[in-house]
């Protein structure tokens, strides 16, 4: 794919997203919102993955952000829009505190500790019963943001996705890209080249967690309700992972591609198998890892390079 076609596709995609609320009904907009939300999570998950660290703590951070928002509104009387930013800030701060310890770990150890994060946050929410509403959850009394109108909520979610995309783009174009790739490829050589591994990882972890928390805030503001089961749902970990893996990891385009495909499929699956639709993602993750670890993007790239070598050979003959 050369630069001009990719620019045309990007423009077309932006145009479609801009005009969608004008003619689509409530249900398509709701589907679009879900797709965008999971896509944003997939992108942030991939951003951390570019450094070679897997986080299984997506649901934990989304849930944390959700509760930060709803408690700020219900207990603190914070304005709606500010509470979403607060969720990002709060999740970022918590990630800084936790990351300070757990980023001394690498690979497996880091991943498993993040896997526990969701469980830990959930237990804390359960136990602080008087403040958080405990297992029954908590409701925003004054109602959902924008009175639940699907148009403005669409723009809100799009803004969330925009932040994730911008961050990912920034990561790809700035020093982050070189630092994270160096850490992923070989930590020792990265260190000897003067890359401060811990600082880069911490920055990445904090930024991605803040965005994930903000997405949680947007989620909870669009539904006006949070309970441990709804906001720490395994969907938030699984679906973004499956999206990023299917599309192709270590890029911005991959998670977008996987997000569109799987996002639409997942909305359909939710209707078909209400309980247990997650099994599809579990199996998909297994199949992708075993048979196409570089995802659809990797397959496309391979096909592209094969085509060009074919052409070169023909030219040589």
């Amino acid at each position: 794919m050369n630069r001009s076609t990719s620019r045309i596709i990007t423009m077309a995609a932006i145009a479609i997203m801009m005009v969608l609320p004008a003619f689509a009904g409530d249900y398509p907009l709701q589907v679009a919102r879900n797709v965008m939300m999971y896509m944003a999570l997939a992108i942030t998950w991939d951003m951390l993955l570019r450094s070679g660290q897997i986080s299984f703590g997506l649901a934990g951070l989304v849930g944390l952000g959700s509760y930060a928002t709803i408690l700020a509104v219900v207990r603190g009387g914070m304005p709606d829009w500010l509470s979403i930013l607060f969720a990002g800030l709060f999740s970022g701060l918590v990630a800084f505190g936790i990351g300070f310890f757990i980023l001394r770990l690498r690979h497996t150890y880091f991943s498993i500790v993040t896997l526990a994060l969701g469980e830990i946050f959930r237990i804390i929410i359960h136990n602080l019963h008087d403040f958080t509403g405990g297992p029954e959850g908590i409701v925003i009394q004054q109602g959902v943001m924008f009175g639940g109108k699907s148009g403005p909520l669409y723009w809100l979610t799009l803004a969330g996705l925009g932040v994730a995309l911008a961050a990912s783009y920034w990561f790809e174009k700035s020093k982050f890209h070189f630092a994270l790739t160096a850490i992923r490829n070989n930590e020792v050589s990265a260190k000897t080249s003067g890359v401060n591994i811990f600082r880069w990882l911490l920055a990445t972890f904090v930024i991605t967690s803040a965005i994930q928390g903000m997405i949680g805030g947007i989620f909870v503001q669009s539904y006006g309700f949070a309970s441990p089961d709804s906001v720490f749902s395994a969907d938030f970990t699984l679906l973004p992972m499956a999206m990023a893996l299917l599309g192709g990891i270590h890029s911005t385009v991959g998670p977008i591609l996987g997000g569109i495909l799987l996002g639409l499929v997942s909305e359909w699956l939710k209707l078909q198998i209400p309980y247990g639709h997650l099994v599809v993602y579990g199996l998909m993750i297994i199949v992708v890892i075993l048979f196409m670890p570089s995802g659809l993007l990797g397959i496309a790239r391979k096909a592209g390079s094969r085509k060009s070598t074919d052409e070169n050979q023909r030219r040589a003959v």
Partner: protein
Amino acid sequence: MAVKRQKAITWALGLAASVAILLWKPTVLIYGLQTAGLYAAIAIPMGLVLGIVHIVNLAHGEFMMLASYATYFACKALGMDPLFAIIPTALVTAAFGWIIFQITIRRALKAPELNQLILTFGLAIAFTQVINLMFTSQTYKMPLDYVSASMDIGDLTFGTWSFVFIAMAMLFSFGLQFFLTKTTTGKAALAVGQNPRGAAIVGIDVYKIYGLVFALALALVGAMGALFLTKSAIFPQVGSPFTMKSFCLVAMAGVGNIPGILSASILLGVAENFLRAFRGTRGWADIVFFVLIIVVIMSRSLKGRKS
């Protein structure tokens, strides 16, 4: 010398703490040890797989959950006691694990560590959700009389059935020690664990050993699945805390240190039951393992900086 002194201090502190707890709240120590037995017996197979196959199996607890479900429905159909199902379940789980190993994990052994993690995570989700799809999230429990057996010492009453977990942990620990140091296959497995390439050079079929060790670990997990059913209700997510706690214990003990798993699980079990003993702190018992793992990381990284 310093290490020796430090070890002695740790032991003395541990002993003093347990004597204090024994005098003050004896049930905490008793139930703590019982819980420790359960944790250790489940964590030991994970340690075995991590030490020899070098794979963190994030579907560890989920395999146990599957074994429990299989036992439940087999026992229900045949009117059998789960205790008689321990050995058949172990065999079936081992066979199942061997098949899963051959069709999935084996292909990812040469791949980066990240792929293995994501793969076993996918397995865990697939297992949980298949059970969720088949049996919904309803809980199942076996009504058994002997589980509520109790014992009185003075005015102290406590359940005795869970001591079986301690016996099981001991059996696993000593059995594995024997297997790994005295039998030819076990020695080969140990060699593979230490250096796969070297083991291949001296003529050991590395992949065969991997499959065998994985199956052996799952046999132990399967046995624990059947035994777990006697004590506890089962539901699709019942295994996942055990995956995390097992990993926590293995990480605390250090890879390849089976006796270390025993002492780590005593610490975890007693600490959890200590919190459960008070009404106000009961809900916090489940985050002890997380705190422990953070403390272990902290102390290791401080120690690393000193040396």
